[in-house]
Protein backbone atom coordinates (compact mmCIF):
# COMPACT_ATOMS: atom_id res chain seq x y z
CA UNK A 1 0.00 0.00 0.00
CA UNK A 2 1.29 3.44 -0.87
CA UNK A 3 0.18 6.96 0.00
CA UNK A 4 1.33 10.38 -1.13
CA UNK A 5 3.37 12.06 1.61
CA UNK A 6 4.32 15.72 1.52
CA UNK A 7 7.02 16.88 3.93
CA UNK A 8 6.72 20.65 4.47
CA UNK A 9 10.03 22.25 5.51
CA UNK A 10 9.67 25.72 7.05
CA UNK A 11 12.76 25.94 9.27
CA UNK A 12 16.25 27.14 8.29
CA UNK A 13 18.92 24.43 7.89
CA UNK A 14 20.76 25.19 11.16
CA UNK A 15 19.86 26.48 14.60
CA UNK A 16 17.58 23.52 15.28
CA UNK A 17 17.52 19.93 14.09
CA UNK A 18 14.14 20.23 12.36
CA UNK A 19 15.64 20.33 8.87
CA UNK A 20 17.73 17.23 9.51
CA UNK A 21 14.87 15.27 11.06
CA UNK A 22 12.44 16.29 8.31
CA UNK A 23 14.95 14.88 5.82
CA UNK A 24 15.23 11.66 7.85
CA UNK A 25 11.44 11.42 7.75
CA UNK A 26 11.40 11.88 3.96
CA UNK A 27 14.06 9.21 3.48
CA UNK A 28 12.24 6.80 5.79
CA UNK A 29 8.95 7.27 3.93
CA UNK A 30 10.78 6.61 0.65
CA UNK A 31 12.53 3.54 2.09
CA UNK A 32 9.10 2.14 2.97
CA UNK A 33 8.01 2.64 -0.63
CA UNK A 34 5.77 5.65 -0.18
CA UNK A 35 5.47 8.46 -2.70
CA UNK A 36 7.29 11.41 -1.16
CA UNK A 37 7.54 15.07 -2.10
CA UNK A 38 9.15 17.94 -0.21
CA UNK A 39 7.87 21.52 -0.11
CA UNK A 40 10.14 24.30 1.16
CA UNK A 41 8.41 27.41 2.52
CA UNK A 42 9.65 30.60 4.22
CA UNK A 43 13.11 30.26 5.77
CA UNK A 44 12.93 26.57 4.82
CA UNK A 45 14.16 27.52 1.34
CA UNK A 46 17.54 28.32 2.92
CA UNK A 47 18.01 24.54 3.25
CA UNK A 48 18.38 24.48 -0.52
CA UNK A 49 21.22 27.00 -0.75
CA UNK A 50 24.39 25.60 -2.26
CA UNK A 51 27.95 25.68 -0.90
CA UNK A 52 26.92 25.45 2.76
CA UNK A 53 29.94 25.43 5.09
CA UNK A 54 28.32 23.79 8.08
CA UNK A 55 31.56 22.24 9.39
CA UNK A 56 32.44 25.66 10.82
CA UNK A 57 29.57 25.28 13.33
CA UNK A 58 30.12 21.59 14.01
CA UNK A 59 27.34 20.38 11.71
CA UNK A 60 27.13 18.36 8.52
CA UNK A 61 26.16 20.39 5.44
CA UNK A 62 22.47 19.86 4.79
CA UNK A 63 22.69 20.58 1.06
CA UNK A 64 24.96 17.53 0.64
CA UNK A 65 22.44 15.38 2.52
CA UNK A 66 19.54 16.67 0.45
CA UNK A 67 21.59 15.50 -2.52
CA UNK A 68 20.91 11.93 -1.36
CA UNK A 69 17.17 12.25 -2.04
CA UNK A 70 17.35 11.23 -5.74
CA UNK A 71 19.15 8.02 -4.68
CA UNK A 72 15.93 7.14 -2.83
CA UNK A 73 13.84 8.11 -5.87
CA UNK A 74 12.68 11.31 -4.19
CA UNK A 75 12.90 13.93 -6.90
CA UNK A 76 9.66 15.83 -6.31
CA UNK A 77 11.09 18.96 -4.69
CA UNK A 78 9.06 22.18 -4.58
CA UNK A 79 9.73 25.62 -3.18
CA UNK A 80 7.76 28.82 -2.71
CA UNK A 81 8.93 31.11 -5.54
CA UNK A 82 8.41 34.27 -3.46
CA UNK A 83 10.44 32.86 -0.55
CA UNK A 84 13.30 31.99 -2.91
CA UNK A 85 13.28 35.45 -4.47
CA UNK A 86 13.08 37.22 -1.11
CA UNK A 87 16.23 35.40 0.02
CA UNK A 88 18.16 35.95 -3.20
CA UNK A 89 18.10 32.30 -4.23
CA UNK A 90 17.88 31.24 -7.86
CA UNK A 91 18.82 28.27 -10.03
CA UNK A 92 22.47 29.31 -9.98
CA UNK A 93 22.71 29.40 -6.17
CA UNK A 94 20.59 26.37 -5.31
CA UNK A 95 22.26 23.08 -4.39
CA UNK A 96 19.78 20.99 -6.34
CA UNK A 97 16.97 21.52 -8.83
CA UNK A 98 13.57 22.42 -7.38
CA UNK A 99 10.31 23.43 -8.94
CA UNK A 100 9.33 26.95 -7.88
CA UNK A 101 5.59 27.36 -7.21
CA UNK A 102 3.36 30.38 -6.74
CA UNK A 103 0.52 30.44 -4.22
CA UNK A 104 -1.93 28.70 -6.53
CA UNK A 105 0.68 26.03 -7.31
CA UNK A 106 1.28 25.40 -3.61
CA UNK A 107 -2.46 25.07 -2.95
CA UNK A 108 -2.78 22.60 -5.82
CA UNK A 109 0.18 20.57 -4.53
CA UNK A 110 -1.32 20.39 -1.02
CA UNK A 111 -4.67 19.15 -2.29
CA UNK A 112 -3.00 16.28 -4.19
CA UNK A 113 -1.55 14.75 -1.03
CA UNK A 114 -2.83 12.01 1.26
CA UNK A 115 -0.62 13.06 4.18
CA UNK A 116 1.05 16.40 4.94
CA UNK A 117 3.72 16.49 7.65
CA UNK A 118 4.87 19.95 8.73
CA UNK A 119 8.33 20.62 10.14
Amino acid at each position, binding site marked *: *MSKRFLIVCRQPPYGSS*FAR*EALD*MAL*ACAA*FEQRVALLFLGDGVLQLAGAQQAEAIGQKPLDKQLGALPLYDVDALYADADALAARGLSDTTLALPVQALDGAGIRALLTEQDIV*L*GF
Partner: protein
Amino acid sequence: MHTFAILVLGAPVSSQSVHTAYEFARAALAAGHRIERVFFYHDGVLCGNQLQIAAGGERALPVQWSELAGAHGVDLVVCVASALKRGVVDEAEARRYGKAAGNLQDGFELSGLGQWVDACLKADRVITFGP
Protein backbone atom coordinates in the same frame (compact mmCIF):
# COMPACT_ATOMS: atom_id res chain seq x y z
CA MET B 1 -15.54 7.17 13.61
CA HIS B 2 -12.04 8.00 12.44
CA THR B 3 -8.69 6.36 13.01
CA PHE B 4 -5.93 8.82 13.86
CA ALA B 5 -2.15 8.67 13.63
CA ILE B 6 -0.61 11.39 15.80
CA LEU B 7 2.91 12.80 15.43
CA VAL B 8 4.33 14.72 18.40
CA LEU B 9 7.39 16.90 17.67
CA GLY B 10 7.53 19.44 20.49
CA ALA B 11 9.46 19.23 23.76
CA PRO B 12 7.44 18.75 26.94
CA VAL B 13 7.27 21.87 29.15
CA SER B 14 9.00 24.05 26.50
CA SER B 15 6.28 23.58 23.90
CA GLN B 16 2.55 23.91 24.47
CA SER B 17 1.99 21.57 21.53
CA VAL B 18 2.73 18.50 23.65
CA HIS B 19 -0.09 19.24 26.06
CA THR B 20 -2.37 20.11 23.15
CA ALA B 21 -1.58 16.74 21.59
CA TYR B 22 -2.50 14.99 24.85
CA GLU B 23 -5.79 16.89 25.15
CA PHE B 24 -6.56 16.16 21.50
CA ALA B 25 -5.93 12.43 22.01
CA ARG B 26 -8.13 12.43 25.11
CA ALA B 27 -10.95 14.23 23.32
CA ALA B 28 -10.73 11.99 20.26
CA LEU B 29 -10.93 8.82 22.36
CA ALA B 30 -13.80 10.24 24.43
CA ALA B 31 -15.69 10.99 21.20
CA GLY B 32 -15.36 7.35 20.14
CA HIS B 33 -12.51 7.67 17.65
CA ARG B 34 -9.59 5.29 17.49
CA ILE B 35 -5.91 6.18 17.72
CA GLU B 36 -3.75 3.82 15.72
CA ARG B 37 -0.51 5.09 17.21
CA VAL B 38 1.10 8.15 18.77
CA PHE B 39 4.62 8.57 17.41
CA PHE B 40 7.07 10.79 19.29
CA TYR B 41 9.74 12.29 17.06
CA HIS B 42 12.32 15.07 17.28
CA ASP B 43 12.11 16.71 20.75
CA GLY B 44 8.80 14.90 21.27
CA VAL B 45 10.77 11.81 22.35
CA LEU B 46 11.41 13.57 25.67
CA CYS B 47 7.76 12.80 26.48
CA GLY B 48 8.93 9.24 27.15
CA ASN B 49 11.42 10.25 29.83
CA GLN B 50 9.98 8.93 33.10
CA LEU B 51 12.44 11.02 35.16
CA GLN B 52 10.37 14.17 34.60
CA ILE B 53 9.02 15.64 37.80
CA ALA B 54 5.98 17.88 37.57
CA ALA B 55 5.76 20.90 39.83
CA GLY B 56 3.19 21.12 42.59
CA GLY B 57 2.49 17.41 42.93
CA GLU B 58 0.78 17.12 39.54
CA ARG B 59 1.27 14.00 37.49
CA ALA B 60 4.00 14.37 34.89
CA LEU B 61 3.01 14.21 31.25
CA PRO B 62 4.70 10.83 30.54
CA VAL B 63 2.53 9.28 33.27
CA GLN B 64 -0.61 10.89 31.85
CA TRP B 65 0.18 9.63 28.35
CA SER B 66 0.88 6.19 29.71
CA GLU B 67 -2.41 6.03 31.63
CA LEU B 68 -4.42 7.27 28.67
CA ALA B 69 -2.80 4.76 26.35
CA GLY B 70 -3.23 1.92 28.82
CA ALA B 71 -6.93 2.65 29.26
CA HIS B 72 -7.60 2.73 25.51
CA GLY B 73 -5.01 0.35 24.07
CA VAL B 74 -3.11 3.08 22.23
CA ASP B 75 0.42 2.42 20.95
CA LEU B 76 2.95 4.98 22.22
CA VAL B 77 6.09 4.73 20.11
CA VAL B 78 9.22 6.80 20.64
CA CYS B 79 11.55 7.15 17.64
CA VAL B 80 14.67 5.26 18.67
CA ALA B 81 17.08 7.37 16.58
CA SER B 82 15.74 10.65 18.00
CA ALA B 83 15.54 9.21 21.52
CA LEU B 84 19.08 7.86 21.86
CA LYS B 85 20.51 11.23 20.85
CA ARG B 86 18.40 12.91 23.54
CA GLY B 87 19.06 10.46 26.35
CA VAL B 88 15.80 8.51 26.37
CA VAL B 89 16.60 4.78 26.56
CA ASP B 90 14.88 1.58 27.57
CA GLU B 91 16.63 -1.09 29.65
CA ALA B 92 17.94 -2.96 26.60
CA GLU B 93 19.49 0.16 25.05
CA ALA B 94 20.90 1.21 28.42
CA ARG B 95 22.70 -2.15 28.67
CA ARG B 96 23.87 -1.99 25.06
CA TYR B 97 25.44 1.46 25.56
CA GLY B 98 26.75 0.84 29.08
CA LYS B 99 24.39 3.27 30.83
CA ALA B 100 23.47 2.89 34.49
CA ALA B 101 19.73 2.63 33.85
CA GLY B 102 16.99 3.07 31.31
CA ASN B 103 14.49 5.88 31.73
CA LEU B 104 11.68 5.04 29.32
CA GLN B 105 8.25 5.45 30.88
CA ASP B 106 6.19 2.25 31.13
CA GLY B 107 3.65 2.10 28.32
CA PHE B 108 6.05 3.58 25.75
CA GLU B 109 8.26 1.61 23.39
CA LEU B 110 11.29 2.51 21.30
CA SER B 111 11.04 1.76 17.60
CA GLY B 112 11.86 3.12 14.16
CA LEU B 113 10.23 5.46 11.67
CA GLY B 114 8.73 2.44 9.94
CA GLN B 115 6.21 2.34 12.79
CA TRP B 116 5.14 5.87 11.90
CA VAL B 117 4.78 5.09 8.19
CA ASP B 118 2.78 1.99 9.12
CA ALA B 119 0.46 4.09 11.32
CA CYS B 120 -0.03 6.59 8.47
CA LEU B 121 -1.09 3.77 6.15
CA LYS B 122 -3.63 2.38 8.64
CA ALA B 123 -5.07 5.73 9.75
CA ASP B 124 -7.51 7.85 7.81
CA ARG B 125 -6.50 11.02 9.68
CA VAL B 126 -2.91 12.11 10.32
CA ILE B 127 -2.18 15.07 12.58
CA THR B 128 1.11 16.69 13.62
CA PHE B 129 1.66 18.60 16.89
CA GLY B 130 4.58 21.01 17.06
CA PRO B 131 7.12 22.44 16.63
